[in-house]
C-alpha cells in the first residue's frame, strides 16, 4: 500500500509572457525516488521550485496529503520545512559553521532544544561523512564537502520529501562520486526523493521512476527500466541517445 504525498494538478507557470510549465500532472508516493531528466531550459528547476513554493504557480494546484498548499490560509513555511531542498550551488549559510547550518532550522522552526538539535545534526553529518568538519565554515570547505553538509542540513529537518536540483553539476568531477554515493545511500534507506539530474547512471541505477521533461511539459514518465530502455516518445529517445553516446 503506497500512500500519495504530493499531487500536482494542471500546474502552469509563466514568467511574464513566457509559459514555462504547461499543464503538469504529477504524483509523488512515499518511498519513491524520482529522477527528472530533460534538456536545459525544459522547466525542470522551475517544477522543483514550484514544489516547495520558491516559485508561486500561475495556475493549477499542488496537494500535500490532500490539502492544497496554495490555499490562502495554508501555512507555507511549515510546509517548506517538510519538503527539503538541495541546491546546485549548495547555498550553505555562510555566516555559520557546518554544525550551526544543521541546527538553526531545527531550533527556529521545529522548536527543538539546542542539545537535541545538535545530536540530530551530528547524526546526519556522520551519515554524509562530514562530522569531523562540524566546526568549519563553508568558505573553508570544498564543493563536495559543502554539498554533503547541505544534504545533512536538509535531513536534519526530517523532511518527508527531499528535492535535489542538479546537486552535482557545480562540482569538480572528482567530487561528484562522494555526493552521488551519499544520495544512493539515502535512497536505499527509503527516503522519498525527487532528483533533477544529468547523471544518467544515477537515474538508471537508483531511481524507481523517471520523468522526462521537454519544453515545459512532461513528455514521458514511467518506471526507470521502461523509460531508459524502451522509451516511446521520440524526444526521449533523442535525448537519451545523445546522453548515452556522450557518456560512452
Amino acid at each position, binding site marked *: 500500500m503506497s500512500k500519495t504525498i504530493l499531487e500536482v494538478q494542471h500546474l502552469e507557470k509563466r514568467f511574464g509572457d513566457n509559459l514555462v510549465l504547461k499543464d503538469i500532472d504529477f504524483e509523488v508516493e512515499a518511498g519513491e525516488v524520482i529522477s527528472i531528466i530533460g534538456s536545459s531550459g525544459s522547466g525542470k528547476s522551475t517544477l522543483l521550485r514550484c514544489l516547495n513554493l520558491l516559485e508561486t504557480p500561475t495556475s493549477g494546484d499542488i496537494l500535500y496529503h490532500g490539502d492544497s498548499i496554495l490555499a490562502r490560509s495554508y501555512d507555507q513555511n511549515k510546509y517548506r520545512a517538510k519538503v*527539503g*531542498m538541495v541546491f546546485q550551488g549548495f547555498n550553505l549559510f555562510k*555566516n555559520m559553521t557546518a554544525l550551526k547550518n544543521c541546527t538553526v*532550522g531545527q531550533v*527556529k522552526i521545529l522548536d527543538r532544544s539546542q542539545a537535541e538539535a545538535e545530536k540530530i545534526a551530528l547524526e546526519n553529518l556522520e551519515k554524509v561523512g562530514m*562530522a*569531523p*568538519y562540524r566546526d*568549519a565554515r563553508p*568558505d573553508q570547505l570544498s564543493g563536495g564537502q559543502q554539498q554533503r553538509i547541505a544534504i545533512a542540513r536538509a535531513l536534519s529537518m526530517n523532511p518527508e520529501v527531499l528535492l535535489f536540483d542538479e546537486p552535482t553539476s557545480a562540482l569538480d568531477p572528482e567530487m561528484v562520486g562522494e555526493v552521488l554515493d551519499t544520495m544512493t545511500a539515502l535512497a536505499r534507506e527509503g527516503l522519498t526523493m525527487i532528483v533533477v539530474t544529468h547523471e544518467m547512471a544515477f537515474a538508471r541505477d537508483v531511481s524507481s521512476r523517471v520523468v522526462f521533461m521537454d519544453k515545459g511539459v512532461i513528455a514521458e514518465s514511467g518506471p526507470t527500466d521502461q523509460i531508459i530502455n524502451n522509451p516511446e516518445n521520440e524526444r526521449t529517445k533523442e535525448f537519451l541517445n545523445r546522453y548515452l553516446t556522450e557518456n560512452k
Partner: protein
Amino acid sequence: MKNKTWTRWLTLSFLALIFTLITPLTSTINAQDESYDQNLINEALEEPGTLKVGMEANYAPFNWSQTSSSNGAVEISNSPGEYANGYDVQMAVRLAEELNLTLEIIKLDWDGLPPALESGMIDAVIAGMSPTPERERQIDFSNAYYNSEIVLVVREDSNYAAANSIGDFDSARVTAQLNTFHYDLIEQIPNVHRQTAMDSFPAMITSVLSGKSDAYVSEAPGAMAATAANSDLMYITFDENNGFDTGQVNTSIAVGMQKDSPLLDPVNQALSTISQADRDQLMNDMVLLNERGESTGFWGDVREIWDMYGSQFLVGARNTLIIALISTVIGSTIGLGIAIYRSIPVDKKRNPISYFFYKLFDLLIMVYIEIFRGTPMMVQSMLIFYGSKLFFNIDMSPLFAALLIVSVNTGAYISEVFRGGIMGIDKGQSEAAKAIGMSHFQSMTTVILPQAIRNTLPALGNEFVINIKDTSVLNVIAVTELFFVTRSAAGSTYMTFQSFLIASIIYFVMTFVTTRLLRLIENYMSGSASYTVHESSTMPKTVERGSL
C-alpha cells in the same frame, strides 16, 4: 569691522522674509522719556528680565573666550566653564545694568548670529558687527557703540609725532597690512612713498621702530595694542576733514536687534549714557588685557594655548566624540530599519491594501533619504535648529539638535549602504533559508543581516569617522564641539595656526583610534581563520584557512 561674506545667511533669507511677515508691527517708544518703560522692554525680550546677547567670543579685542571669570568676564551660558570678555562684553554688561536686566551671553558662530536673532534665540547681537546695507535689511542697528578710526602709528620721537592731518605725512614712507583696504588708503597721502605691504602687526611695528617706514596704517584698537606694548610708539588720530576717506567701508560697530524691535530706543538711550571718553578708556583697558608677553616661539605658543584652553579643547573633543558615536549608532539603527522594511516582500495581488500602505510609506522613506542626502548638513542644522524655534517655538538644546541632525543624516546615508549590503548577499542564501521553512523575518535576522552587516562594517566605520569630522559644521548651532572651541582659541589669541594644529592632532588621534578599533571588530566578526577537525581515534588537528 567685520565684513565676512554672508552667502550662507542669504540662502536662509526666506526665514527672515517669513519672519517679517508674521511679526506684527510694533509701536515705537516715546523717546522723550528719561527712564525706561520696563514693560515694553520685557515684552520685547524672549525671557522677561534677561538680555540674551549673542557673540562669537573669538574676535579680540571686541570679544574673546577665556577659562576664568577674571577681569569681569561673563560665563557663556551655552558653554559651561568658558567665559567671554572684551569690549563687546563690557558694553553688554553696561547696557544690561542700565536697562535693569540680567545679562546672558550666548556663544554662536558668526553665520548663526542672524538666524538666532530672528528666531528669538537671542535678543541682541553685540559682536563687533558693522551695520551694512545688506544687514540692515534683516536687522535693526542701534547707534554706534564704537567708532574705529583709521590712524597712523609712528615713533614717538619722529617728526610726525605732532601731525594732525594726513597732509602732514607728505612724502613719508608708509606701510599697511597685506590684503586690507588700509593698504589702498595710503595713496590718499600726498607724494607718499608706499612701502611693501606687511603680513602681520609685528612686522609693521618692527618696520616703524627700525626707521625703515615712517608710519603704518591701522584701526584704533590695533594701534592701542601696539602702543601699549611699545613705549616708543604712538598713534596719530585725525578729525573728520583731515583724515582718510574710507568711502563705503563702515568702521563703526553697533548693536543688532530684530527688525522694528521696541528695544531699539531703550538701547540707544542707554548707549548715550556712555561717554566717548569712557568708550576709549574701555577699549584701552581691553586691548591691554588681551596683551600677551613676548612670543616664546612656535611650540611655546602651542604650549601656551594648550595651557590656557586645554580643558576647553578636551570638552570639545568629548562632545565631538559623543555626538559622532551616538549619532552613528542611532543613524545605523534607522538605516537598518529602513533597509529591512524595504526588503519586505509584499504581494500586490494577495494583499492590495497592505501593498498600498507599504508603497506609501516607502515613498516617504525615499523622500527622507533624498532630502537629507541632497542638502548640506549645515543648511539642515540652520533650518531645524532655528526654524523650529522661529515657526513652532520649540527650544531644542544644541546638543539634542546636533544628535537629531547627525543621526537623521547618517540614517539617510546608511540605509542605502545597508540596502546595497542586503542586495549583495547571494539570492541562494535566502532561498536556502526559505527552503528549511524560515519566514522572511527569520531569514533576515539569522542569515541575511549577519552577513550584510559584516560586509557593511567598513562603510559604517567610515561613516563614524566622517561624523567625527562633520560635527564641525554644527558650530552654526552653537554646539561646543572641537572645531568651535578651536575657533574661539584662535580668535582670542590671534594664534590661528597653533590652535588649529592642536585641533588637527586631536581629530587625528580620534579618527585613528576609531579606525583601529573598528578593524578589530571586523576581524572578530569574521570568525577564526582556522577550525578543528574532530576525529574519534586521533588527536584533533587544526586546519588553516586556504589549506584545502
